[in-house]
């Protein structure tokens, strides 16, 4: 299992990783096993790709991968499937640019290239014994899914307390992984909520932005660690709301997205202050983010 940097600091380093001899830029081959259409809204712009890798692949929840299509280019995606699944891995891709558009055209059996895993991960050990509060917006559910599935795994479930999940999306059709919702909602000691931006026909759950809703979901301030993921404005509003509510910023975690090229802290693109999102992140606590310039 690859090394983690729980607090994002450079000093906590694993000897193995320091002596990284293999060329980190060389990708390995993978084949698409299945393409899953996620969103049911009109644009249908989110698909999940299930990949079979040539070489065994180990990662921790929160890490990301560089995904390339030869001749098109490379893109960064967070893992979207549980690391405990060894047969395949999944990546969720929204069609938004040149590369992702081409990725969306791929079908079963296509060859793609993968390098990674890169980045730190959610501090799972540090969270042991605590209640967890997941809040996600739209595609932000994807990088959190490995952690959700990991924690729900019978082997690890007893290490964590109660779980609250608040999933947000623009419209009912925009939820990704909706086929998992029933399973998650039935888990013991778990509360599962959904919200959409504006009212829709036949919708009986929350309506409104997540930061306006956390007051309606009672949680234990002392015992809870919050994990957020979503678009930058949502993260900013939501973390403010949590902090105002009394949750210390050290116990709010989020995962950032930045434009990236190399994934190994060289290309300079994901630089926020002296930190590189690709090696110091992508998981940061709000306390760490508070010290960094707000260029994200």
């Amino acid at each position: 299992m690859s090394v983690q940097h729980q607090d994002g600091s450079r000093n906590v380093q694993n000897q193995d990783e320091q002596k990284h001899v293999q060329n980190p830029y060389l990708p390995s081959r993978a084949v698409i096993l299945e393409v899953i259409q996620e969103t049911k809204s009109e644009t249908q712009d989110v698909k999940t790709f299930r990949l079979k890798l040539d070489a065994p692949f180990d990662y921790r929840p929160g890490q990301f991968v560089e995904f390339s299509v030869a001749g098109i280019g490379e893109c960064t995606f967070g893992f979207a499937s549980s690391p405990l699944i060894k047969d395949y891995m999944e990546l969720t891709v929204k069609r938004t640019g040149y590369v992702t558009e081409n990725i969306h055209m791929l079908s079963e059996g296509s060859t793609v290239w993968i390098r990674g895993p890169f980045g730190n991960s959610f501090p799972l050990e540090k969270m042991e014994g605590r209640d967890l509060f997941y809040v996600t917006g739209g595609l932000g559910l994807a990088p959190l899914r490995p952690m959700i599935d990991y924690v729900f795994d019978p082997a690890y479930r007893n290490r964590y307390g109660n779980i609250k999940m608040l999933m947000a999306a623009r419209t009912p059709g925009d939820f990704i992984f909706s086929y998992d919702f029933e399973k998650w909602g039935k888990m013991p000691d778990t509360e599962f909520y959904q919200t959409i931006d504006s009212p829709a026909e036949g919708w009986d759950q929350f309506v409104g932005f997540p930061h306006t809703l956390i007051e309606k979901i009672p949680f234990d301030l002392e015992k809870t660690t919050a994990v957020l993921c979503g678009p930058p404005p949502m993260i900013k509003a939501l973390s403010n709301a949590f902090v105002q509510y009394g949750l210390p910023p050290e116990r709010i975690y989020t995962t950032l997205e930045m434009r990236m090229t190399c994934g190994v802290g060289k290309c300079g693109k994901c630089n926020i202050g002296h930190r590189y999102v690709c090696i110091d992140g992508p998981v940061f606590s709000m306390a760490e983010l508070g010290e960094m310039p707000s260029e994200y």
Partner: protein
Amino acid sequence: MSAYEMRSNFGPLHVLTGNQVRDALEDVLQKFTVVAPVMADNKLVYDEVNDVSDIVLNDALPYKSPKDVVFPRVEDVMRFLENRVEEAQVIKPVLLVGAKPCDLAAMKVLDEVFTGEQGRYKDSFYSNRRDFLIIVGMNCREKKSGCFCEERGINPAFSQDCDGFLTLQDDGAVYEPLTEKGADLFSGATAASENSVSPGEETLVLNTSEAEVFTAMPWEKYAEGCIGCGTCTFICPTCHCFNLRDSEKKGIVTRTRVWDSCMYPKFTLHAGGHNPRTRKYERFRQRVLHKYLYIPENYGCTACTGCGRCIRSCPGGLNIRNTVLDIQRRLAEKREVHV
């Protein structure tokens, strides 16, 4: 052990006459691909040499930095074959002659970033080229307008960060081998080495934190005049941001590494359309702080060598040295008030 104690372990000094320098260059030209300062279109640049008479060894600082010997503007790094990828790694040995102390210092920064222990990952593409590079440094006796290497703690007369150092004198030169690779490149009458040169003191540094300078300084004023052309980053000896791109030729997809520049808005543009740095002053701030704050924090060395290239070539007249001096002054004032 300080690097300076290691001097002279690789042989004595060689005192060379002008003709001997020529002959030695003639000799190395047979063995290596030589990159040296040459005139091209009225500008002195580091470029590949075909004829010894083209080499210009004098006090002028070449217009562009020699970084593209190890980090080319465009380089093929790998290609996709049917079931695997292949790395481009057959590289000819290159001898860089006449690199000025500021450029040697820059090479050290690049080494640190790409292959250093602090960097966690080793950049193989860079180290492939770096391992095949021999550098012969050369002294610099003339301070150009905009040069401030001494404020950055660089001694223009000598540098340890190379395989051998050529000190030009009025009649001929003195060559000092500094590593095994540079041991017998030039030879002449031998002499004992004098351990008199020492590096200067770095005065132009920022001892501060991001929170203190990020919004408190008048960045918009510093960046006034910027046209966003990125010239500063392209001729900078330490700028190393890059992009990886695929191109297809004759059915084979090759991945290329090309320089990128933080002075372009597109540099940080997310696929989703969000851009963390949309304004020119924000990008200039990134460039200054990356050199003077972020790299020092991560790698322990300031990534500006005081070569003054960006100052001389900026169409908008932006000045990194004055910017840092002004920040220093403002910080000092602020701290005084607090005391």
